[in-house]
């Protein structure tokens, strides 16, 4: 009916409001939202919470988010393909148990035990990926199932017992490598923090500068279109789950350093915490959009809020309250930005 005249188009372009400009800007640079939130929250807590801006505290926040941050990297890959992985935390704990059991209880040389832990991570990724691609089960349900199965394996393998820090020191100190730290000014940096940063750096390169990365985004954005363009969708998906499993294995090594022991009961909620970091980091749950650096910032934001609120001495319920609103805010902003593409 209505015919668009060139004039009308020009007029529309002119009438773009500041808000619309912001919307377009964020659509192009989705990581700007978490970056702004991070800057504002650091300044905010710096003003109201004692010692918050001390190098000691700032580096402690990084130490505290290192394990969940690394897991968030794995989660991001899966979410970029419009999937979700509820099993990442269980896979990580399973890998810690494999490493600890082999190296401490069975006397396997530590490097081999660690490699076995990585292989365990990759194998669980293969299981998830195969179920998703071959049986065409939705990722949510698949990983809900394997989450339970992997936890059962954890209890079975570990005999529900913790492997103590002192026994690891005596038999396989290499397992605690990522708990080691060094000082940089007043900053205390653990190797686990460096590992997290390295994982994100490698993923950044892989996702932005390789054909594989472009395909991961394409599959996440529209799997059918990707298939029509000649991308072997199942192969990409399987590779994503396996790489995510490997990263869980790395996170496992980091987790042993952080906690000191191999503990089957720790990190029970790390799967949800990793999803939280990814969502706050601005990666769209609908797949195909968002920068891999977002979840790194998302994880740090959660750490900043928890640390700031703890330093203020407020009840723990406010940490949950704040995290909840951050998630809802992040998803709302994502929906708003998405309106442009429709």
């Amino acid at each position, binding site marked *: 009916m209505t015919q668009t005249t060139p004039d009308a188009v020009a007029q529309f372009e002119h009438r773009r409001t500041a808000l619309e400009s912001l919307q377009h800007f964020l659509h192009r640079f989705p990581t700007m939202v978490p970056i702004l939130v991070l800057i504002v929250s650091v300044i905010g807590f710096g003003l109201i919470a004692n010692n918050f801006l001390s190098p000691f505290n700032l580096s402690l926040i990084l130490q505290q988010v290192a394990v969940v941050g690394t897991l968030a990297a794995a989660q991001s890959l899966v979410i970029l393909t419009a999937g979700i992985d509820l099993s990442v935390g269980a896979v990580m704990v399973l890998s810690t148990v494999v490493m600890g059991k082999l190296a401490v209880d069975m006397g396997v040389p530590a490097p081999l035990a660690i490699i076995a832990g990585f292989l365990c991570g990759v194998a669980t990724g293969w299981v998830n990926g195969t179920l998703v691609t071959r049986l065409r089960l939705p990722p949510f349900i698949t990983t809900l199932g394997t989450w339970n199965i992997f936890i059962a394996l954890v209890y079975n393998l570990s005999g529900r*017992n913790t492997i103590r820090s002192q026994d690891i020191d005596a038999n396989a100190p290499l397992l605690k490598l990522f708990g080691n*730290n060094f000082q940089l000014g007043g900053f205390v940096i653990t190797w686990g923090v460096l590992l997290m940063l390295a994982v994100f750096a490698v993923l950044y390169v892989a996702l932005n500068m390789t054909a594989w990365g472009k395909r991961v985004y394409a599959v996440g954005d529209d799997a059918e279109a990707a298939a029509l363009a000649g991308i072997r969708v199942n192969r990409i998906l399987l590779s994503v789950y396996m790489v995510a499993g490997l990263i869980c294995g790395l996170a496992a090594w980091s987790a042993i350093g952080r*906690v*000191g*022991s191999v503990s*089957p*009961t720790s990190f029970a909620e790390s799967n949800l915490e990793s999803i939280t970091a990814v969502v706050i980091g601005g990666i769209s749950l609908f797949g195909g959009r968002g920068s891999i650096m977002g979840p790194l910032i998302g994880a740090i934001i959660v750490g900043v809020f928890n640390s700031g609120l*703890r330093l203020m001495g407020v009840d723990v319920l406010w940490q949950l309250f704040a995290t909840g609103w951050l998630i809802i805010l992040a998803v709302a902003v994502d929906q708003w930005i998405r309106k442009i593409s429709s």
Partner: protein
Amino acid sequence: MKRARLGGLAAMALTASTLAAAAQDPVKACVITKTDINPFFVKVKEGAEAKGKELGVEIMAYAGKIDGDHETQQQAMESCIAAGVKGILLIASDPKAIVSSVEQAKAQGILVIALDTPLEPANAADATFATDNYEAGRLIGAWAKGTLGDAAKDAHIAMLNINATQPSVDVLRNQGFVEGFGMDPKDKSKYGDEDDPRIVGQEYTDGNEEGGRRAMEAIFQRDPAINVVHTINEPAAAGAYEALKSFGKQDGVTIVSVDGGCPGVQNVKEGVIGATAQQYPKKMAEMGIEAIAAFAKDGTKPAATEGKDFVDTGVQLVTDKPVEGVPSITSDEGLKLCWG
């Protein structure tokens, strides 16, 4: 109508068969725990099974899937009633909600014993067999005070608890410690209301190593002069120690805990934990099965420990640095009695 009559017949048949069964079959008992994961509950199950074998009581064991899984426990209660057991040992996940099932069981003449966790109200069960968690806290508090000596007057104390729901076990251990250390616990039904300046703060650990470390880091930031750490259990204590070690402060700090699991007692032996109050899940279960066997024989119900409203299954302080006036056993003795 027809269905109702059939149901009635079935019920009569069932009653007849249970009566017949009671005459010939061995006494049956149920053990229902919160989960099958925690070594404490595993030990309860093992203890019940061993004692059952000894006394000729057939044991049926059930567990919830996770801590807080009330529904599975309710189904287990129903299965136990249907199976015609003589008694049920129950570690309730939801001590309030399970009461209606407990009452159904009691109406069928079944002896219901609450283990470890009292029901709410506690008298809903025929008896409660539990560790005196307040006493456990008091012992480690008194030991910490004695160990510090004069320095106890200006101690800097971190309280590392379980979680924000403040379950009764958590409150009892915390408040027991406060009293044992010679501070005023104020309202004993909750923690955090004390105004003694020696308590630097309360943090939550989820009862595991990761949470213990996180909590210790948080409290250390508020006061780096912390020199006494109360922990809800030994995994939390191990996590707190890791945090202190990363700050290079592990030597000047006294950590106390509760539980008596084998890794925890080993940590006492190695000086990571100063003292821990050991509880006895196996004994708890054994006493429970004995009570059910006695009830099956002549209908006697267990009586509470004198001066308490439950049957105290005992708690002992494990430490290698005994303090005068606080009875304790050594870590080697503790290792012989430990669980998990």
